[in-house]
């Protein structure tokens, strides 16, 4: 086995209390997430050998609810203690740092002085009131981000708020919130940003990125950038819709729908599309990686997806319990009648490109921008007749 070749890695990890078995275990699950076969595990293990120094990182909280930090605390591949103690040296993280006040900020400052660190940003970038919508250490949140971003090797924007402002930027966007990438672009700061939307972020994805960057060295090689889509999201996570992988997809195909809650159809676990499920237009792999250590996920608990990984997800998705888009439904012919229209809100719609983030949403438009009418493959199926 290749293990013997990597004694140094294991020595390093052993020195930090991580057993070889544990390490291979979580490399195995990460390999699966990255779509690699188990035979890549030794390669991943080899990639860790960057020397005895952990990659420094700083975790900043913008206009956050701390839900993404909470979410990270729910991961076991590896667990959060391993991440913050053994994989990264997260020298500043408001929610977990032992230090406080000026001493905590000084720990961050020491990291900022040496270029090459990882910056993780949680929460919206708060532009309102000249940035005073968020105040930290007597400064605005904007000043903190302006200072932290340029020297970072990469910024990981965790959660929808950090991607585009999330719910905080929903109409009327009272605090003028935006996301890290659009904000930095407006300031001409070119540090690469990896976007991990959904509200909160699924911790498995952050782990995948940490491994990709730290262990596969994909930042230095530039490979990480090739893996991102137009929004800056890793394609291997956000390349398919929830609908594509939904365990209830069979019910959709068979025309078995929940029309109302509190009905027999609901008890039977039928498809939730008619009660507003946004699975068909939401690109994440939730049905596969699931949530809370693979325990369950939204649809499994009987709830329609609200599309929390979409750009401007509140304006785009609300009213969450209503359908928004034509789809071919076999049971009722080609398209369902009476699609709820006139309530689709927000500017981020067609194509869902990142450019939409920068568009100033000045008001929730009654009638709103149109969605893409249907996915190309749905259209094709319809042309064939009834989606059969």
């Amino acid at each position: 086995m290749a293990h013997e070749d990597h004694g140094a890695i294991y020595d390093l990890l052993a020195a930090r209390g991580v057993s070889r078995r544990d390490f291979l275990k979580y490399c195995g699950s990460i390999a699966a997430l990255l779509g690699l076969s188990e035979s890549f595990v030794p390669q991943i293990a080899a990639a860790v050998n960057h020397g005895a120094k952990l990659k420094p990182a700083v975790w900043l909280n913008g206009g956050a609810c701390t839900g993404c930090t909470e979410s990270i605390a729910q991961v076991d591949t590896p667990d959060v203690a391993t991440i913050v103690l053994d994989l990264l040296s997260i020298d500043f993280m408001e929610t977990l740092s032992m230090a406080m006040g000026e001493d905590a900020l000084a720990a961050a400052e020491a990291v900022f002085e040496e270029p090459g660190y990882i910056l993780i940003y949680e929460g919206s970038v708060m532009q309102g009131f000249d940035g005073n919508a968020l105040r930290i250490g007597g400064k605005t949140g904007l000043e903190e981000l302006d200072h932290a971003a340029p020297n970072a090797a990469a910024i990981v924007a965790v959660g929808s708020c950090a991607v585009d402002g999330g719910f905080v930027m929903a109409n009327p966007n009272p605090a003028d919130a935006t996301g890290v990438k659009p904000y930095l672009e407006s300031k001409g700061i070119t540090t690469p940003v990896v976007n991990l939307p959904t509200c909160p972020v699924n911790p498995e994805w952050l782990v995948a990125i940490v491994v990709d960057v730290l262990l596969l060295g994909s930042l230095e090689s530039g490979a990480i950038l090739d893996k991102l889509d137009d929004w800056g999201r890793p394609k291997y996570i956000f390349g398919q819709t929830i609908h594509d992988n939904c365990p209830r997809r069979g019910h959709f195909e068979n025309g078995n729908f929940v029309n109302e809650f509190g009905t027999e159809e609901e008890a039977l676990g039928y498809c939730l599309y008619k009660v507003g499920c946004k699975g068909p237009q939401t690109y994440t792999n939730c049905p596969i990686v699931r949530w809370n250590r693979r325990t369950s996920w939204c649809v499994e608990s009987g709830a329609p997806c609200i599309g929390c990984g979409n750009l401007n997800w509140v304006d785009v998705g609300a009213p969450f319990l209503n359908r928004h888009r034509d789809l071919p439904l076999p049971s009722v012919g080609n398209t369902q009648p009476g699609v709820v229209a006139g309530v689709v809100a927000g500017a981020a719609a067609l194509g869902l490109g990142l450019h939409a983030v920068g568009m100033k949403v000045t008001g929730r438009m009654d009638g709103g921008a149109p969605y893409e009418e249907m996915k190309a493959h749905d259209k094709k199926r319809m042309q064939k007749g009834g989606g059969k």
Partner: protein
Amino acid sequence: MARSVVDPLTRIEGHLRVEVEVNNGVVTDAWVSGGLYRGMEKILLDRRPSDAFYVVQRICGVCPISHGHASTASTEDALGITIPNNARIVRNLIEAAQYIHSHILWFYTLAALDYVDPVKALSADIADTYALAQAAGTGVSDFGAVAKRLQAFVDNGQLSIFTNGWFGHPAYAEDMPAELHLIGVAHYLEALEMQAVAAEIIAIMGGKFPHFMTSLPGGTTFMPTEQKLDDILFRFVKLNEWVTNTMIPDTLAIAPFYAGALGYGGGHGNFLSWGVFNDESFEANNRYMPAGVIKVAQGLTVADADASVLTEDVQRSWYDSATGLHPSAGEADANFSEYNVDDQYSWVKAPRYDGAPMEAGPLSRMLVAYLRGVQPVQDLVNGALEALGAAGRPEVLVSLLGRVAARNLETKVVSDWSLEWVNELIGAVAGGDSKFFEPHDVDEGMGAGLWEAPRGALGHFIDIQGGKIARYQVITPSTWDCSSRDDGGVRGPMEEALVGTPIIEVERPLEAARIARSFDP
């Protein structure tokens, strides 16, 4: 006289600045400033009430369940809906899982480092640590492995989240043995696993945590199968064992070394609870943790809580809107001026109950429940008072240590009840009750969802017109506790609790941070 500032106050949810004035080693004045404005209430306008359920959870990623439940309850109050009994039990269980999660996370992950010094743990004798754990009746971990991991971590020199911690601060109890510090570190790591187990329960019943999906107005969309009931039960049992055999003994083992904290940190002595965990009557005073209000002028006596006497002052915080409004007529027109403790200095408003500041949180709930004669609460509190050498004197709980102890004891009470509730749900389902949702078509009305988050009294106030939200106001627990001064200049509860706190090092006011964190803001 000296000013001392902690900004940011770490290990809390959100952004908080604590500024204190210290005279002769004691805090003589304090200002607490909330650093974030998002405008949640404005974002909800013109949307559907059921949308509020999802959006409001994003107020707080540590207590989204309570915000979801309060929002849903406000809509149900407005529309006159009573949810099915099964939905009531399901909500109690999801809420209970969040309480257990949140309290474990608070004590071990956020607060413990104010009382336990990891560096002191390095000099622990492993054999003595086992002996001490057994004597204290607390959980036994692989203390040797933890010590080794800790030593390797320190030797490595990259301290990650421990960088610049106030190791060796003189406010750490001098006589607390290194072995107890090591037990604390070991259980800090174990707690990370336990809070995740509690969150798994929410995932089963609510899809995911944080931000769950199932408690929609009308009931719940979670319908348990036998397998899911079993998945829930075994996790609650596991948590109950850990809370009983580790968290409570840890609390009782560490508390005597900080007995001085029974003497300060109490604050105004006013307490508010809206009540949480419904029984079949759905009456707030009959809730497992009942509603009630305690006013310092009346001593430790409880009165019914009345939401009609609420106001929110805004003159000392960064708002332009009218001051002193009831939340059902409330506004929140933000306008930043500057940070000036003599004028406006916070994004947090000043909610008042009949004109008085109110502490919200586990201490409020436990005191109200104690005074209302809730038996398991009385038994636990009396036992703890005896252990602290204060038998028969519940008034000593109005202190820093009391606030900490109340939260941990509540974890035990709620955890015990959670086992009852799972069995109640199993019984109901086995008895043939398959109703989890009450369909509804009313679309006008005003309502209030008065509930309790783990960190205290939570009110959501909604006005629904034509099926859409015409007004939405929220008073969170941290708005109560971290309240700025009101228009009359009266301090908020946390500010008042800081006054009188002894400070050893003005530059490193660990004791002030303890007070602020004890509210779990």
